[in-house]
């Protein structure tokens, strides 16, 4: 029976640089191979295998032969080895040529067939496999690429240095951190001490970290690996640039820009330090992304059937799910959005809604009268109002002007947009008008076709978005940090790439987040996306998964073209109006399902997506309201409720 062998991590393009005194026949020899982390009978092994190696266990000459640390290479079942051989023939040439192109190493020439046979045999000498509990330390060095030196506990001889010419050392260490604690050696910051505290690998590392004996991890100020390589990163860039023959002279400024942005968004670093799982659980196996189908939009006849004779929405939960899956046909939006945004309570009767609307109309016009009745003299002494008005006038003239509702001169839509924004300044004078708000109002007004309803729906939407626009832009910072945390989990390789391009704090997503993709999608697609998001399904902060979905579609281009800081920003900006809403929503939901089915989800992710809140909510037995996954009115969709949030008075009407 074949032994149970699970590949946890695999990365190729790992080279050994044997020197002649290490017994190499050829001083130019570079051994190309791959590294793996394997789980075998609850033991975690680190294995290096050269390519062009016949898969024959007897060929393996383990480094540190006399050490108990070296375990034998476990043969995979036949099927697997066949596929690997295939992989080898495909990759052995490419890998070496990549090397030649990227770092100008001399490619070894094989002059005769015999030589290549000997060569193959020679290579097999370099395979090794070691149990991680026998590792004493890993030294991380950098020579324009990262190389790692693995030191064994009970052997004075070290294993050959592993040169990560094609990246992946960080991912390798991150994977290793799932099974071992890597702590910076006090004497040598390039050296990470390996400790394997517990062989029960199933035990959650979060629990482990709560244990006082591992308190050192909490005190661990910096991610040692980040620190170690961070100091080399600039050098690395210069070397790469020199070898690429780049003419770009803007190397320094983007880095400086990035440093400054890092100061602007300081939470990113803090977040990583505070996150206890960060050092350990940075990558989890998410499994295959399930295919997702979108449904047809909810049609008018369906909508009217959902109400009882008095006009109450009978099954809010099902309705939300229905809207999440298919959105709304346009005819239903005017009514349904009022519920989705919380202007109308789901349980209200038609009669109650009429009286609510009446009260809200009075309230609106009282506020509108306030700015309407300010004289020019008064305004001259009120610079804030003057500034708000001036900017609103300018921005109304450049918001969705190609839409029929706002096009042409003297279109009544423009007056309404202006008046509602001015009245909002009276509603929330501290915030006033901030650029971006006209983008948020425009689709709502377009759907409502009514000044008062549009205003109150806008107020509800602004309740969710308020923090984005506040003086310190805390909402933006929080979301960028949360998005970075999510992306790191979902796609560490891409996250690492962005980080290497000084873009790890995802500044290029600023516009997406500030105005919820309003500028990225066609007007009709914005309506669809927003109504889907307002259902509060399938989880809190679903819009961040929408970001992840878009980034997932773009990462290949970004990485293949080796985009730097500026190019990434430009590329993302230029995605505007090129995105497919259906595809994005399917992918975002797929990502949600992947995360959802993940067992050992880091706490930070559960918090961002509201899984922990949700559990609490569902445990409560609240006879007053139907259970729903995310109480949207209670949890701001940016996961951060602002303090002293103005009471949304429409809720008060029914409770008083």
């Amino acid at each position: 029976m074949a032994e149970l062998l699970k590949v946890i991590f695999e990365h190729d393009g790992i080279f050994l640089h044997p020197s002649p005194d290490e017994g190499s026949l050829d001083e130019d020899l570079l051994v190309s191979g791959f590294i793996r982390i394997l789980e075998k009978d609850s033991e975690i092994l680190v294995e290096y295998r050269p390519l062009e190696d016949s898969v024959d266990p007897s060929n393996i000459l383990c480094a540190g032969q006399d050490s108990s640390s070296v375990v034998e290479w476990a043969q995979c079942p036949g099927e697997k080895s066949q596929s690997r051989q295939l992989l080898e023939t495909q990759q052995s040439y490419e890998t070496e040529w990549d090397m030649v192109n990227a770092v100008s190493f001399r490619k070894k020439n094989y002059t005769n067939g015999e030589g290549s046979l000997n060569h193959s045999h020679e290579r097999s000498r370099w395979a090794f496999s070691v149990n991680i509990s026998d590792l004493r330390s890993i030294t991380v060095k950098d020579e324009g690429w990262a190389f790692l030196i693995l030191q064994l506990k009970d052997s004075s001889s070290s294993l050959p240095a592993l040169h990560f010419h094609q990246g992946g050392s960080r991912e390798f260490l991150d994977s290793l951190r799932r099974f071992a604690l890597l702590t910076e050696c006090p004497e040598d910051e390039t050296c990470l001490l390996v400790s394997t505290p517990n062989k029960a690998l199933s035990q959650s590392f979060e629990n482990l970290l709560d244990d006082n004996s591992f308190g050192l991890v909490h005190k661990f100020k910096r991610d040692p690996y980040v620190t170690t390589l961070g100091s080399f990163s600039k050098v690395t860039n210069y070397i790469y640039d020199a070898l690429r023959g780049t003419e770009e002279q803007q190397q320094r400024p983007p880095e400086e820009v990035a440093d400054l942005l890092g100061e602007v968004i300081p939470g990113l670093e803090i977040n990583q330090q505070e996150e206890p799982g960060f050092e350990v659980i940075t990558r989890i196996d998410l499994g295959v992304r399930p295919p997702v189908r979108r449904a047809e939009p909810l049609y008018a006849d369906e909508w009217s059937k959902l109400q009882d004779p008095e006009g109450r929405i009978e099954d809010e939960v099902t309705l939300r799910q229905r809207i999440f899956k298919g959105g709304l046909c346009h005819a239903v939006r005017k009514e349904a959005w009022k519920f989705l945004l919380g202007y109308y309570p789901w349980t209200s009767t038609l009669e109650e809604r009429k009286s609510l609307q009446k009260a809200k109309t009075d309230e609106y016009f009282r506020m509108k009268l306030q700015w309407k009745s300010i004289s020019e003299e008064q305004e001259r002494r009120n610079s804030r109002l003057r500034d708000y008005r001036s900017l609103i006038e300018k921005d109304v003239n450049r918001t969705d002007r190609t839409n029929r509702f706002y096009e042409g001169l003297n279109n009544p839509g423009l007056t309404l947009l202006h008046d509602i924004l001015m009245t909002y300044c009276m509603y929330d004078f501290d915030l006033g008008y901030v650029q971006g708000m006209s983008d948020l109002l425009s689709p709502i007004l377009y759907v409502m076709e009514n000044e008062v309803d549009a205003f109150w729906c806008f107020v509800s939407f602004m309740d969710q978005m308020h923090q984005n626009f506040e003086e310190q832009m805390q909402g933006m910072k929080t979301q960028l940090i949360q998005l970075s945390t999510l992306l790191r989990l979902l796609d560490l390789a891409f996250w690492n790439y962005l980080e290497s391009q000084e873009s790890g704090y995802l500044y290029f997503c600023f516009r997406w987040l500030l105005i919820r993709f309003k500028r990225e999608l066609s007007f009709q697609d914005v309506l669809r996306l927003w109504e889907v998001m307002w259902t509060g399904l399938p989880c809190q902060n679903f819009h961040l998964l929408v970001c992840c979905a878009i980034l997932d579609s773009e990462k290949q281009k970004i990485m293949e073209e080796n985009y730097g800081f500026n190019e990434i920003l430009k590329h993302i900006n230029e995605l505007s109006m090129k995105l497919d809403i259906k595809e994005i929503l399917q992918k975002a939901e797929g990502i949600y399902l992947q995360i959802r089915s993940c067992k050992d989800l880091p706490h930070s992710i559960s918090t961002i997506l509201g899984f922990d809140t949700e559990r609490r909510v569902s445990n409560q037995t609240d006879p007053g309201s139907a259970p729903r996954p995310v109480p949207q009115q209670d949890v701001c969709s940016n996961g951060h409720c602002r303090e002293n949030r103005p009471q949304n008075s429409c809720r008060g009407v029914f409770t008083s």
Partner: protein
Amino acid sequence: MTARKSLLKVILLGDGGVGKSSIMNRYVTNKFDAHLFHTIGVEFLNKTLEVDGNQVTLQIWDTAGQERFRSLRTPFYRGSDCCLLTFSVDDNQSFLNLSNWKKEFIYYADVKEPENFPFVVLGNKVDVTERQVSSEEARLWCQENGDYPYFETSAKDATNVAVAFEEAVHRALAADDKADHLIPTDTVKLHRKPRSATACCS
């Protein structure tokens, strides 16, 4: 040695609505859209041009003008070779704010010698009939604040836009030559060193 492509970073600053994006678009794409959206965040466009037989890539950065976005705008000031201070001739407040923009730029761009940094001032929207700022006022301000070149532009009908950017390029290159301790001459030559060179060797 073959001619090296050079990259210049130019940044457009000024109040919201003075026409920064329109000026950039007019120069780069030669198009004007009266209903262009106001800028959210930061954007840039590249334009390649030839100066004295050498190729220069102009990287033009455009930002959101509202005060609220300052903290997310200012990091991009670093590394600028020239700053285009922009106001609208039909908006006196935008003219009064020029000195604030200049201050903000100098502070955040970490300019070594502010008195020698190449600023160019643009009074945009000269196509509009109701002016609030006269040419004289604007020229006086430019004279008193560092003898900056002043251009009255219209992104709408393309008046002076290209000229203003060309001046920006020449000023930026001239400033760079001075910084390299080369004798300033009337003809601008391109012999910029790669910025990374010094840092790389140190």
